[in-house]
């Protein structure tokens, strides 16, 4: 049996940090678009939001496929059962949200009869037909899930910092590029 890796591979790190960066972009674009009246500026910002969202969806598919074929490095010993469950739950929630956010966004755009373009290069098919009631429901869901995503992200970041500065283990460092090996404790 091969020894399990103690660090995330460069590909896993790339998935993690690129998607994390794109999610920050998404929150920023959504915040910028929200107060604007229907006009060119709102259209432009939402078009970018949709293009980035579809990029995240494509990356999420690749990342899930990758994850199903690879094991994550083991959690450090000494974590309680509750901590292990919390870590597992947070990571599963991220995977669910990585699909749920773009899919609710894409469907809601379809329901409003606005097809989603990918940076003007091609147009994604509409997932459902025009439907005002579905749009209202999906918009509420998309908004609510964004708060859930924000909360999970905060929990994730606090936990990583707690591992690094409180527990002094390598949970944070093993996801950081340009760092070497396991941390001496």
């Amino acid at each position, binding site marked *: 049996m091969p020894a399990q890796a103690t660090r995330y591979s460069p590909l896993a790190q790339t998935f993690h940090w690129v998607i994390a960066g794109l999610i920050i972009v998404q929150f920023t674009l959504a915040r910028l678009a929200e107060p604007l009246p229907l006009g*060119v500026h709102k*259209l*432009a910002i939402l078009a970018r939001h949709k293009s980035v969202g579809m990029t995240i969806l494509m990356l999420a598919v690749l990342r899930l496929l990758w994850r199903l074929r690879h094991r994550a490095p083991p959690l450090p010993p000494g974590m309680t059962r509750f901590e292990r469950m919390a870590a597992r739950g947070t990571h599963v929630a991220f995977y669910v949200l990585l699909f749920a956010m773009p899919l609710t966004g894409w469907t809601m755009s379809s329901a*409003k009869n606005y*097809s989603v*373009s990918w*940076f*003007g290069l091609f*147009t994604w098919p509409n997932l459902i037909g*025009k439907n005002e009631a579905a749009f209202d429901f999906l918009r509420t869901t998309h908004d609510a899930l964004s708060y859930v995503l924000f909360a999970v992200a905060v929990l994730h970041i606090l936990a990583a910092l707690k591992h690094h500065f409180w527990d002094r283990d390598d949970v944070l460092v093993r996801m950081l590029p340009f760092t070497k090996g396991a941390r001496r404790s």
Partner: protein
Amino acid sequence: MRFAAGVCAAVLTAMVSSIASAATYSADATSRLEFTGVQAGAPFKGVFHQFTAAVDFDPAALATARIEVTIDMNSVDSGDKDRDGTMRGADIFDVAHFPTAHYVTRSVTRTATGFSAVGALTLRGVTKDVPIEFKFAPGAAGAGLSGTAELKRLDFGVGRGDWKSTEWVADAVKIVFSLNLKPKT
């Protein structure tokens, strides 16, 4: 007396034959007038529900052919009430000042696959030539007249202020029409 009756008969014959050579039709309610624009890289389709068309068309007498269409700009429907409201507004169609658009052909010629015509389109108070390509299919109780056109919205000032930019709303707009023509009574 005999002479007067003869003149009357001659005039009547001329009138009847002129009606027969240039059939006069109007478009019925199943006729459609669609347009496709490109917004944020993705195409969107709209229709005008209310329009009237008066058509004089005889493939054997193209010199007297005439297609005239009057469109109620308020009847625009792109499948989203917010977008429709924006299009009716002052920066796009400005229906408050320009409630109708009008198109009338000036000359019709035969092409390899059907007919083409040049006509004057008055849209948002601006009149400019727009060519159309179409097919004419006479039937038992009228005729079908269907075809396409392409125009540049900015030629007619459709899009003021921010909407003048073609970065998020393309200049080119495609028109598709299919008129079900019934003889005028």
